[in-house]
């Protein structure tokens, strides 16, 4: 049996100096590693930026870093699922009405 260790955490990256602003980034790190001593090992890491806080003379402002592509694909998948469910309901109702 494979032993696997999965961890998810939010890590702050090194602040970025940009003119009079100081950007404090946060990154979501998902890692998984496992294996057995006599068969092998595996490890995978995924790092996704989550947000950035811009500190300036007028104060700090939080900015989300959205994954627009993933959001659009998720919306499309949701539309596909809703259409499939609606189709199923219509087909069942049509069969019941014919009886």
């Amino acid at each position: 049996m494979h032993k696997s260790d999965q961890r998810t955490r939010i890590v702050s990256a090194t602040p970025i100096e940009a003119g009079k602003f100081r950007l404090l980034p946060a990154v979501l790190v998902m890692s998984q590693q496992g294996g057995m001593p006599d068969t092998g090992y595996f490890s995978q890491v995924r790092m996704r930026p989550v947000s950035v806080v811009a500190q300036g003379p007028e104060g700090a402002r939080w900015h989300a870093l959205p994954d627009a592509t993933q959001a659009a694909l998720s919306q499309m998948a949701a539309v596909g699922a809703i259409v499939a469910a609606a189709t199923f309901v219509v087909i069942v109702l049509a069969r019941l009405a014919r009886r």
Partner: protein
Amino acid sequence: MEEVMVMLDEFADLSEMFNVDNVFGEPQMFEGRMIIPVAEIAYGFGVGFGSGAEGGCDCDYDDFCDCDETCDDDCECDCHTEGFEDACDCDCDCDCEDYDDAPVMGGGGGGGGMARPIAFIEVTAEGATVRPIMDEQKIALAGIFLSAWIAGCFALVLKALFGKK
């Protein structure tokens, strides 16, 4: 096994090259604005290895095997290999000096990584703005698939409503 450990060490060095700071690219000045690219990074690797129960006979079979006449021509001198002792009626007289009892080991591994741009941060005198980046090719492909899916569902509905019993 030593080679596998070397491979693991090399992958460990590769892991150190990637850290959370790589998610944010080097700031670039462009027309009075500072652009900071932002990407999603993923990488992984795996190694696998295994060992056999016993080593085989490395000797030249023709010289050392003394097969009976009843044995097939393709009789091989596998007398020392586990599971092949009774494979044929060879009077196998393998006098192999190179015979090795040590387990046979083998292994392999691989790895890969990817970086996908998701946004860039635009910093001007007024403030910082996040501009998302959309992968139009992926969206277009998904749109084509979704259109076909909806058309298929619509056809099923029409068939259910107006089709013959």
